[in-house]
């Protein structure tokens, strides 16, 4: 095979692979990422516990952290303050004035860890260690009567916790997926 033929094959290979990878010849300007680098950066914690980091936290430690970092916005024991009611819900969701707290409304305990870690406290998000996030999650769940005062939470126990309103939601426009 002459050089010219080799070149033709090479060029057609390039064109062919471009067409294949780029769909309708849409140009590509993205840079490939190492999957390991991506996984290390993924912050989402899923309802089944996927994405929860190592670590653990006790209710008692959570109470201490809450008093220092959370109480100004969320009030004593998660009641009052401008940040919305977190605990103390007594009225049923069908009541004329329902209580929509963590204990009465939130469907997944894992959401607590995900949200506190990414967004709380609002004056210094991402400043709590993973252990501290587990501890604050544990304290809030305790305030809602869902774990004991001496409980310790980690990835396994948090993911296994079943919330009272877990089945209370209808996924109106969600694609069909298996339950998390």
């Amino acid at each position: 095979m002459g050089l010219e033929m080799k070149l033709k094959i090479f060029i057609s290979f390039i064109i062919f692979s471009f067409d294949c990878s780029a769909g309708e010849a849409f140009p590509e300007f993205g840079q490939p990422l190492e999957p390991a680098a991506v996984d290390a950066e993924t912050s989402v914690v899923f309802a089944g516990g996927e994405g929860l980091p190592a670590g653990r936290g006790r209710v008692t430690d959570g109470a201490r952290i809450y008093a220092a970092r959370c109480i100004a916005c969320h009030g004593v024991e998660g009641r009052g303050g401008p940040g919305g009611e977190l605990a103390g819900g007594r009225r049923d969701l069908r009541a004329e004035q329902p209580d929509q707290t963590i204990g009465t409304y939130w469907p997944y305990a894992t959401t607590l860890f995900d949200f506190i870690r990414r967004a709380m406290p609002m004056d210094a998000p991402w400043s709590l260690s993973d252990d501290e996030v587990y501890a604050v999650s544990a304290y809030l769940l305790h305030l809602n009567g869902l774990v004991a005062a001496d409980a310790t939470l980690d990835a396994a126990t948090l993911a296994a916790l079943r919330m009272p309103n877990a089945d209370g939601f209808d996924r109106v426009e969600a694609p069909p997926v298996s339950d998390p």
Partner: protein
Amino acid sequence: MKDKSNVISSNKPTSDEQVAGNGLLDRRVFLRGTLGGAALAFAAPLAAAPRDALFPTQRVPGRPFENYGLPSPHERGVVRWVAATDGVPGNGISWTPLEQLDGALTPNGLHFERHHNGIPDIDPALHRLRIAGTVARPLEFDIEALLRYPRVSRQCFVECGGNSNAGWRRRPVQTTAGNFHGLVSASEWTGVPLAPLLDQAGVDATARWVIAEGADAFSLTMSIPLSKARDDCLLALFQNGERIRPAQGYPLRLVVPGWEGVLNVKWLKNLYLSEQPAMARNETARYTELMPDGRARQFTFTMGPKSLITRPSAQMRLPAPGFYEISGLAWSGHGRVRRVEVSADGGESWAEAALAEPVLPAALTRFRAPWQWSGQPAVLQSRVTDETGRVQPSRAALLAERGRHGYYHYNAIVSWAVAADGYVTHAYVDTPLETTPLEDLFMDDEWD
């Protein structure tokens, strides 16, 4: 000052121009020119000498050029109303002053805002977008790379899922139309369609969701069905012709046409493909709608058909009986506006309004209807039907279906009551006046 309404009112519409009760006229009345002729009555007599008719600004040179223009200082009252949480000034909202604007697009500086923890200052040279998760080839894009792609433009609204939620209150809130319904704005967004970039990353067949994450101090994550991401989502870099403002997501915003505003993630940094949704706080504890039976609707993405009259509207005053143009906005996340009807008698009778072109899917559509106000009390309403046949519900119908605590997706017909003295107030006309001792269940400083 001349009172135009008095002059025009002397040119009474004929009975065949009245198409609904309480003075609503045929929307085509001006095309026939029957009322327009009255305008000639205003023509001032020619001045005797040109110099006598000069305005002062014609005698002195004007100001020099400016690099970025601002509205006239006489318009400094046309601003957003801002409200934020005590102690957390970056957690709050600002409303677009809908009643002071016209047309179907929102000026960039008046686009509504809902920030959860402030507006980040992002250096575009350092910003990255990553597409990862269940993909064959995780990809990273800097802004320079995104700017190299072929672009598309799409005119659409962004509406907060919590817009108009004061409508749930037991007594009609008295504020301007914008401070009530102004968590909706519309722009022409320009950027890169998302679908081909997802293809380049090689989305796994198991993926059903795209989890979008913002680079703000809330690290907002929202789950969007992959089918929608492929259908018409846009990686927006430009808004109304200029690069997106910091408050709207600079340098990169996900635009999700017709769906809840919170999904249009600002300061976009990650798109994570997944079989499952994130079940993030803002798709479980918030942005879900509690129903009367105690169950809650979740993943209610599409903003339903909605309209309101912006002029005349609450807290305005009609100076005298006579001619007024009723003007407002209509939209639906399900598609184009097909028809807007207006009523001047609280829904007893309806007249079709004229729609300003272009009428685009999931975009704000301006409607107009001529009205001859007799000076008697009137109740102005508008009602939209979209191209799928969905009709904006009455407040009574909405409450009957959804109860009291849905909070989000309030899209009921809005009633403005015009009193004999011309003052316009917000009214409930199809639901009984409530005298319950229960307070309205709204915390003034919680925004979603």
